[in-house]
């Protein structure tokens, strides 16, 4: 349990990555792997899971202000205290010499931590998708990593006009991709996983579920009996596609099984 203990950190910097995307940086020397997350407690407000978009000692997480917590996080000033639990969860693994890494919306925050280290060891295509250009971020980090950047927006304001899964299909069709890694909205993840299976390419998909404990005991994040906080958030594509829940059901905060 030791590694999961609460600790207090100070916000070092609040970076505006795009008009609607913020990154909070803080110092924490615990080692973290791409795809892992922390529970971020904003005292007096709430505690929510956030993937690490920076996994070094200068850690960071990146989010879109959508509700009370994320809006309050975006309004923080340097020096503000945060409670951090974790490093939690499993991670993305590079298993081949050429990976297609896909991020949709705030899912980009999670996969960027894989794009950077994997690009120095393998040929990486990174496909970023968002609703509009304003919600895109980390393109520069992708380019600097050496990965090949692909972009799609729903409204065509940048890159391919349409879904990022269109880009995924095209890349899989052109061949030479050994594995797929993705994080993003569940509909997009499911589309990507279906494509992966169609082309016979193994895939690792990071899914989100409502979380309470983060330590694998409350069952809030259960996905077919697997705990997203502990067994995930990264799951094998075949497990997900064969599960009852993926892309269909999730547990609401009260434990009711509702549609995703």
């Amino acid at each position, binding site marked *: 349990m030791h590694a999961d203990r*609460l600790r207090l950190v100070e916000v070092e910097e609040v970076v505006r990555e795009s008009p609607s995307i913020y990154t909070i940086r803080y110092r924490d020397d615990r080692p973290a792997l791409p795809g892992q997350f922390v529970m971020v407690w904003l005292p007096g407000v709430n505690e929510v899971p956030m993937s690490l978009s920076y996994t070094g000692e200068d850690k960071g997480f990146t989010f879109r202000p959508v509700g009370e917590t994320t809006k309050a996080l975006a309004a923080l000033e340097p020096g503000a205290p945060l409670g951090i639990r974790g490093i939690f969860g499993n991670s993305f693994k590079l298993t081949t010499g050429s990976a297609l890494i896909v991020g949709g919306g705030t899912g980009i925050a999670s996969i960027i931590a894989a794009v950077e280290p994997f690009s120095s060891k393998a040929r990486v295509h990174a496909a970023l998708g968002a609703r509009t250009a304003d919600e895109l971020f980390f393109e520069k980090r992708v380019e600097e990593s050496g990965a090949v950047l692909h972009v799609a927006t729903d409204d065509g304001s940048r890159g391919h006009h349409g879904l990022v899964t269109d880009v995924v299909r095209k890349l899989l069709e052109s061949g030479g991709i050994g594995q797929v890694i993705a994080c993003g909205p569940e509909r997009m993840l499911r589309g990507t996983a279906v494509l992966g299976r169609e082309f016979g390419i193994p895939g690792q998909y990071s899914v989100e579920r409502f979380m309470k404990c983060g330590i694998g*005991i409350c069952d809030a994040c259960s996905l077919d009996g697997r705990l997203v906080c502990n067994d995930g958030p990264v799951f094998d594509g075949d497990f997900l596609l064969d599960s009852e829940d993926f892309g269909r059901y999730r547990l609401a905060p009260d434990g009711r099984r509702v549609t995703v």
Partner: protein
Amino acid sequence: MSVPDTGTAVGTLKFRNPLLLASGILGESAASMVRVYNSGAAGVVTKSIGSESRPGYRNPTVFEFGSGMLNAMGLPNPGIVDFGEVVRKTRASGVPTIASIFGSSPAEFAALAASMQEYGADAVELNLSCPHVEGFGAEIGSTPAMVGEVVKTVRDSVSLPIWAKMTPNVSDVAALAGAAEDAGADAIVAINTVKGMAISAKLRMPVLSHSVGGMSGRAVKYVGLRSVYEISGRCGLPVVGVGGISCGEDVAEYLMAGASAVQVGTAVSEGGPGVFGRIAGELSSFMSSEGFSSIREMVGIARR
């Protein structure tokens, strides 16, 4: 020496080993409970279910410290209507399922128990640690009179076994157990969490959003053992021990204090559902090396 028999029974219910999943731990979804069973538990207790759905408290709902944790989940649950599907599924998968329920009046407990019986639960476990609406903030399970009344009302409404789960936050837990026995309970479960609270000195505020929570894990093992010992010295019902169990010797200690079976909760956060298989193996090795061939031989031998 031959392989020891880890099978046990709590009243009429038989279990392949003494290890059950404690209420509130991975007990919300059928899939998780089936997984726990497949990982070595002999049965599961569901999350405590109430009349209406409740989202529970806002995060932080848990706080871990060196030897245990505090939680104040706020009894999140889908409500009794939606939970039928879950119990039916675990039963269909062959998992011995004890359905935990909570209410703030005897009648509410009785209605919930009746639904759980209809869903096919193997037993109901009464979570007697909830605020009592008619009382003054004290828990519904904190006096023998209240415990007796709840158990009796439930007894009158269902035929399935009734397990009464005790709060340790009382001056005389054995008296509570005695009241449950007199009112017709079939087993006593002890203990629920110990009331506690964490404060962050730097933030100058409580850590849990609800401020006060329940302590569980290794730090409460000695409270649980004491409760089981006191209860089994006073009351003739089978006792199910809970609190801080994380290895085979812990289970043996509870059995020796007087428990016929145990439940494991917080330890699941250390090794996932696989803890059940590990603990079952350790218990079996302990029995072999100490010369016990059945669980029965161990139950209550620490009483002189």
